[in-house]
């Protein structure tokens, strides 16, 4: 039986095409992936991201524990700040990529739905092994989470949401009350647009939907619902990695170009292995490709230089914004230079491709 988010009834009433995503019944799209993608770039969209894991940490050793499991230095993090970070295994492979936020009383970690159970187990193991004194609680199913993204979102929501949304900087968050309900508003997202992600109690989800969305279902609404399909094409244009594609337990964050999110000067699980990778240099690197024509290179397709296989596609799509076929791929490090001409082997036909700078799209 698939899990349903607190917005399930809304998805059904809005005519969503629902799919199984990491054990959750989620909207792939409501009107069409490209339509929803363009709406997000032009105006605004609302995405149900309640399936993503929300874990809370509190207690004496919370900082020491998080510094052990996360690649970033959390002790330097201020209250009201969020940061992108990785959770690695001992060999430097990625268990998940997460957002860690420091609130007054606790730490909030948002993780991928597909990795939530694995992380809960990993965190439990690390806590026991290191006798860390802390409480971890899984708030995923008692809360709801929506991402509201697009150039017109902040102005539209500034008067509706509690607190000073306009004054929040990117990767800051604040918690406020509205109609006796606790809202946590993060200035963050996964689309390459400005916007917020809002966490609220699950039982208030439908009230929040009316409040935030208003005329959501009207064709000319500023903010309209969008599904996971558009979320994927938006993040790909924005050059953001997706777990299971650009990141996995056998891929490390340095090869993925995420060295800015890895603090090799501190001790964390995976640090030893990552220091070795850093000093030798990654064997392969994550790059962006622009392909000739309209065909899409998909995950697993080989990248070639002359006849030799020099890499592999991790994600690809036809970019609605650029009107070009784009892909992310890992290629041998010496070739990972902007402008390098390669080919993508799309079911046996070699499609010319050139390495371009990431992100493909910047607002």
């Amino acid at each position, binding site marked *: 039986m698939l899990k349903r988010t607190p917005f399930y009834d809304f998805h059904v009433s809005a005519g969503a095409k629902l799919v199984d995503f990491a054990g959750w019944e989620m909207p*792939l799209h409501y009107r*069409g992936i*490209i339509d929803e993608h363009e709406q997000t770039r032009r105006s605004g969209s609302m995405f149900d991201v309640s399936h993503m894991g929300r874990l809370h940490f509190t207690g004496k050793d919370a900082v020491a524990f998080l510094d052990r499991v996360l690649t970033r230095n959390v002790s330097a993090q201020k209250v009201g700040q969020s940061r992108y970070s990785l959770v690695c295994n001992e060999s430097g492979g990625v268990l998940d990529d997460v957002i860690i936020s420091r609130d007054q009383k606790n730490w909030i970690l948002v993780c991928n739905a597909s990795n939530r159970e694995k992380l809960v187990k990993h965190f439990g193991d690390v806590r026991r092994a290191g006798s860390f004194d802390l409480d971890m609680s899984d708030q995923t199913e008692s809360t709801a989470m929506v991402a509201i993204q697009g150039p017109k979102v902040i102005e539209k929501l500034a008067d509706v949401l509690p607190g000073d949304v306009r004054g929040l900087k990117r990767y800051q968050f604040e918690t406020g009350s509205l109609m006796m309900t606790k809202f946590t508003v993060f200035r963050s997202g996964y689309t390459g647009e400005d916007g917020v992600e809002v966490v609220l109690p699950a039982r208030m989800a439908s009230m929040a939907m009316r409040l935030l969305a208003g005329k959501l279902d009207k064709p000319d609404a500023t903010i309209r619902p969008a599904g996971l*399909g558009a979320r994927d094409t938006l993040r790909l244009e924005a050059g953001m990695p997706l777990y299971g594609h650009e990141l996995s337990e056998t891929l490390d964050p340095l090869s993925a170009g995420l060295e800015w999110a890895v603090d090799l000067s501190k001790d964390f699980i995976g640090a030893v292995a990552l220091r070795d990778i850093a000093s030798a240099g990654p064997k392969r690197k994550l790059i962006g490709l622009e392909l000739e*024509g309209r*065909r*899409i290179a*998909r995950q697993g397709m080989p990248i070639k230089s002359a006849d030799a296989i020099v890499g592999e596609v991790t994600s690809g*799509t036809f970019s609605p914004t650029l009107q070009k076929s784009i892909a992310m791929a890992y290629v041998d490090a010496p070739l990972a230079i902007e402008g390098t001409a390669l080919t993508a082997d799309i*079911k046996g036909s070699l499609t010319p491709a050139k390495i371009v700078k990431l992100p493909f799209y910047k607002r």
Partner: protein
Amino acid sequence: MAQLPANYRYLETHEWHRLDGDIVTIGITQIAADELTDVTYVSLPKIGAKVQANQKFGEVDSVKANSDLYSGVSGTVTEINAQLADNPGLVNNDPYEAGWMIKVQASDPKEFAALLGSEEYLKKTGH
């Protein structure tokens, strides 16, 4: 239940076929188009190319997937839908008319008659 046009005949792989004289027009069903999501590219044979019954004649790319296209009849391609090059979304928006893909001069009219009727198609594809 999905609405299917009358008099069209189908393959289990979701291609529809319409017979006008000895010309068979081929496209994909709304069910297939919805499953693919937004179509971004349709790869079609050249005019004059031969197609074989139950053999691949092209490919369709969408935001979510890539899928092969099959012909239910043998014959020669007499026309391709050139509009799809600039507007592949026609396959999603109007799959049975403006989103058609190729026209084939059929070499054996019995092949068309042997294709699935709409009810059989829906049953075989679980709709």
